């Protein structure tokens, strides 16, 4: 078991109605104790798993759900098989009732078969549950998701969106690494991932330092916290997070959002495009492009386009919906070759 000594900073007594404003001031992760403690879902969970299950199913309208399942031998670590040949779990279409039954049947089993239903849109699968069991969004356009499972581990990965995640039942340990630890985390494929995001290939519980020596450095920058029912965590966009669900039944509701214009697509698309068109250029050309990206993308400023008449700045000026449309059409056309 790897010891992470640094703790994630904590705050408490945050009014749920101001949670998004409160974290907007933060650029680093923070644990918010008790943010969701009054939610009915949290209260039911403290009563019993049977109560919790009944309460949840009261909102369920038989919409088929996708669950990840596996045998107990993976120890709940949703990952790859040897040599990344495949994922070590399979996806099944089932019902929420069956997911909860599978979990509860093995409640006292120290090594249960893995059951995990992740990232399901709350309003789609459990309409009405979000009332009183999620943060008031105010003007924030957040997508609210529910995660239900038994003892599971999801290897460190980042998300593009800012995240406030609330533990509703069970306990979860979050281990976080800053975005700049990328190289020390030995991140796996970007086009074959366990659940949509690239993950660290290092087993945090038993790191193989011979194979992954730089991971020792990553651990120097790690911080962790265990969240109890009702606790929440703010995970800023792009922070690596390794998440362990620690009890026989764990439920999490999270809020993902980002405050950018609607015409902006996933940054990962640009990465893929750059890998395709820039990475394999001769070194001198690649360096020149590095400068160009610095100039136009990473450090835009007065020297980028102030010398161009405003009406001719196009993609170098402020991007409005029409400019975004033109850029999209050009890219789409150029990609089709």
């Amino acid at each position: 078991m790897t010891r992470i000594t640094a703790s994630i900073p904590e705050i408490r007594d945050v009014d749920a109605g101001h949670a998004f404003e409160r974290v907007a001031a933060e650029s680093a992760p923070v644990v918010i104790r008790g943010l969701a403690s009054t939610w009915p879902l949290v209260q039911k969970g403290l009563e019993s798993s049977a109560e919790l299950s009944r309460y949840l199913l009261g909102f369920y309208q038989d919409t088929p759900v996708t669950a990840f399942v596996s045998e107990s031998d993976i120890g709940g670590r949703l990952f790859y098989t040897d040599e990344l040949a495949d994922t070590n779990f399979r996806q099944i279409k089932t019902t929420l009732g069956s997911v909860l039954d599978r979990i509860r049947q093995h409640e006292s089993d120290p090594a249960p078969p893995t059951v995990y239903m992740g990232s399901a849109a709350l309003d789609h699968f459990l309409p009405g549950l979000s009332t009183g069991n999620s943060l008031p969004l105010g003007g924030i356009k957040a997508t609210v998701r529910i995660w239900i499972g038994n003892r599971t581990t999801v290897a460190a990965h980042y998300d593009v969106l800012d995240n406030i995640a609330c533990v509703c039942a069970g306990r979860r340990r979050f281990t976080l690494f800053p975005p700049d630890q990328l190289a020390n985390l030995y991140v796996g494929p970007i086009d074959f991932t366990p659940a949509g995001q690239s993950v660290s290939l290092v087993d945090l519980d038993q790191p193989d330092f011979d194979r992954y020596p730089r991971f020792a450095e990553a651990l120097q920058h790690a911080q962790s916290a265990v969240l109890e029912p009702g606790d929440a965590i703010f995970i800023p966009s792009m922070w690596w997070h390794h998440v362990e669900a620690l009890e026989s039944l764990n439920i999490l509701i999270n809020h993902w959002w980002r405050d950018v214009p609607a015409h902006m697509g996933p940054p990962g698309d640009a990465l893929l495009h750059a890998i395709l068109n820039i990475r394999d250029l001769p070194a001198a050309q690649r360096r020149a492009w590095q400068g160009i990206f610095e100039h136009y993308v990473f450090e835009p400023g007065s020297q980028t386009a102030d010398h161009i008449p405003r009406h001719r700045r196009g993609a170098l000026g402020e991007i409005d919906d029409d400019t975004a449309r033109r850029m999209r059409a050009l890219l789409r056309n150029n990609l089709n070759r």
Partner: protein
Amino acid sequence: MTRHVLLDNVTHKNLRVRTALEKGRGYDVNVVRVFPSEFGHLQREYPLFFVKNAESGHFETIALLGFVDRENLYLTGTGWEADYVPLTVQRQPFLIGFQEQVVDGVPRQAPVVHVDLDHPSVGDTEGEPVFLPHGGESPYLERVNSILAAIRQGHEASRSLSQLLVGLELIESIALNVEFDDGSKQSLGGLYTINQDKLRGLSANGLEVLHGRSHLRDIYMMLASLLNVKRLVEKKNRLLSRARGTA
């Protein structure tokens, strides 16, 4: 035989399709599925009917191409003799499949392109390339995509039309009896059309419902298309007389 697989630009990078409509290439059928959006073109050349789908029990719109199984009188030694070719013929060897995609945590069935690898028009040496040299979509594939999209919309329009007509009891079975120049006779069962007496007796309310969903136009085009049965008989007669001439 068919072998439908999801089309992708790696596995099928060299795929080509012979687009010429020729005999022996999977087009030898006497009935094709058609959709209201193409009735305007179709009614000038093909007789249009309803048939009952054996599985679903729903009525579907079809164009009649011949009088016996595998007889396509529009398909001749020089190709498809008609100004307009139905979408479900143009789409071949491609078809619409569905794949679950999760968008914002919500699963949805997204339409995807499948190809029948056993279709006689499919190969990797002649015909239109499906993909561009680096994996982009060829103009041919873009055209196929728009045909498949039109077919998807067509299924909905066809369902709406038949449901409405069933509700108004306007569909009746029709016995098609034809006689050819050589004295042989043919009767076709399983075809349905519009009951014209009931159509004439339809209430203003019923007419308004039909008109409101643009189906009044569809109905009259289906009725007008029945004149093409005569055209089809003539095609068959020409075929029979040529056969006698060469015998």
